[in-house]
């Protein structure tokens, strides 16, 4: 097998080869380091590359597996972490200059769980500074570049997670999602990304952006791989006050059960109002594919969706501002100017503004719960457009132009507000060759249904098999 082919194996296929001892972790990690060496000059996916550490971990995994100590599907698998997950002894910058020398003395809960599962950390990945943006055009570490067109953004804030997985530098990665930061880069880079239910994955050791919205999610090239990573990271985290006590489940268990009779709702209002026509067409075709596989599809009304932007901004900015208040007072010049402005705007919010937004969020959630009583899943585009050019602040959509940040997060934010699981997966390409993402959102803690639908669509199409032209 060619090194490049090894790098584009799915985790589930690589795991079979590893457990059968047909491929060794050392071969796998060596091939990925070679791939990173060939491509990262163009992509800039990594803030910190752990070349020696990953090879040492690969040798240890190889020894474990040879001696009969195979731990499971992530054992020996090369992964990356967005640079806001604490890694003991490894620099964790959160994409900032301010935390450029920060070395945590303990692991995040998810880091620890991935370590215990035997996953091999290749490095810490690019991100928008402090996760406060959707482009990953980072002024301190350089912009992350989209593997499908390196002049374009990856999306963000988990941009390096998107580019590293799409380009075969890692088999899987973790991102965090507050308003779409897993799903936006996954959609723009042509991979699968899941924002689990709020509370499903523990957040101890994850540098916060917005406490009441932050969610950790896996990003991989297949739905099954996302389920495999979720199996490892999900479950109660006693050090995270928002962590759910629901018992862990096997998210791969129902993937093959088919989707006959599953009810899909399509909210045309808001979700299809400001949209590139190629994206609208691809998503409509995807709905047709799912209908052909046995799901029922109906239009649903979501009149509250238009309130998602003011509610989201009203919650995120004050919470983010409180996280960073001390540095805003003492080191404001060291922030990305746009991030600084957003945070200072949050500082200048009043307590009643914040609580109004949190009350409106309750209202929004009540409305969404009623919509979800009639369907199992909502189907929407993930991002309204393909990846914009690096540096563009405005993007063309339909007959107009919109600010990139608000446009990219327009269709993902609503599902953060109600905390439900939402997955994106590739459903086509624009005429410029840029990936288009399909978003499926379900009921709270029903990741299984969302993933089952996504898997059924993926198996019926070939979008996930395409590789970027690097």
């Amino acid at each position, binding site marked *: 097998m060619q090194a490049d082919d090894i790098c584009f194996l799915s985790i589930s296929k690589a795991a079979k080869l590893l457990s059968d001892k047909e491929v060794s972790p050392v071969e796998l990690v060596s091939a990925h380091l070679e791939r990173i060496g060939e491509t990262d000059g163009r992509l800039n996916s990594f803030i910190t590359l752990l070349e020696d550490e990953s090879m040492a971990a690969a040798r240890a995994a190889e020894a474990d597996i040879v001696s009969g100590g195979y731990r499971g599907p992530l054992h020996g698998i090369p992964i990356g972490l967005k640079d806001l997950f604490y890694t003991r002894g490894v620099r964790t910058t959160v994409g900032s200059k301010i935390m450029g020398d920060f070395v945590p003395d303990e692991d995040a809960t998810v880091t620890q769980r991935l370590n215990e599962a035997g996953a091999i950390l290749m490095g810490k990945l690019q991100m928008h500074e402090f996760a406060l943006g959707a482009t990953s055009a980072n002024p301190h570490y350089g912009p992350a570049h989209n593997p499908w067109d390196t002049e374009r953004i990856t999306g963000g804030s988990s941009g390096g997670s998107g580019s590293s997985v799409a380009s075969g530098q890692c088999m899987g990665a973790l991102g965090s999602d507050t308003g779409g930061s897993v799903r936006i880069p996954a959609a723009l880079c042509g991979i699968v990304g899941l924002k689990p239910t709020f509370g499903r994955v523990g957040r101890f050791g994850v540098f916060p952006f917005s406490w*009441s919205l932050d969610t950790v999610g896996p990003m991989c090239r297949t739905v099954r791989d996302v389920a495999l990573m979720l199996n490892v990271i999900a479950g109660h985290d006693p050090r995270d*006050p928002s962590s759910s*006590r629901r018992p862990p489940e096997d998210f791969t268990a129902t993937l093959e059960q088919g989707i006959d009779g599953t009810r899909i709702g399509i909210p045309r209002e808001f979700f299809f109002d400001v949209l590139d026509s190629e994206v609208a067409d691809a998503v409509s075709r995807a709905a047709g594919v799912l209908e052909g596989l046995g799901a029922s599809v109906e239009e649903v009304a979501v009149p509250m969706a238009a*309130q998602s*932007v*003011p*509610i989201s*901004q*009203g919650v995120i*900015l004050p919470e983010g501002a409180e996280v960073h*208040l001390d540095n*805003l*007072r003492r080191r*404001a010049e060291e922030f990305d100017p746009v991030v600084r*402005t*957003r945070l*200072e*705007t949050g*500082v*200048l*919010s*009043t307590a009643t*503004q914040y*609580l*109004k*937004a*949190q*009350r*409106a*969020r*309750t*209202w929004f*959630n*009540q409305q969404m719960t009623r919509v979800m009583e009639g369907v199992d899943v909502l189907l929407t585009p993930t991002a309204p457009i393909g990846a914009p050019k690096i540096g563009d602040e405005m993007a063309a959509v339909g007959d107009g132009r919109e600010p990139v940040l608000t446009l990219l997060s327009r269709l993902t934010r609503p599902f953060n507000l109600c905390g439900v699981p939402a997955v994106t997966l590739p459903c086509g390409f624009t005429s410029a060759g840029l990936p288009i993402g399909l978003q499926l959102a379900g009921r709270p803690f029903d990741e299984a249904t969302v993933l089952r639908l996504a898997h059924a669509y993926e198996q019926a199409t070939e979008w996930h098999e395409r590789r970027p032209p690097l």
Partner: protein
Amino acid sequence: MEVGKVAEPNISRDGIRALADMAGLELTEDRLDVLLPEVRKALESRAQLDRLDLENVEPAVVFEPAGE
């Protein structure tokens, strides 16, 4: 559902300066120029939420004394 019209909120440079003072932020005149339109946009968002009927709706903030 929307309820009765409310006064549109607004804020001046002095108003922003006062809020910044309370928060311990030192803002130059240049920063005030940058922030004034952003804060006004945030107020417009707030006004949009003021028009919702949120009677008997509590904020989505829960405190659990025993951490259960």
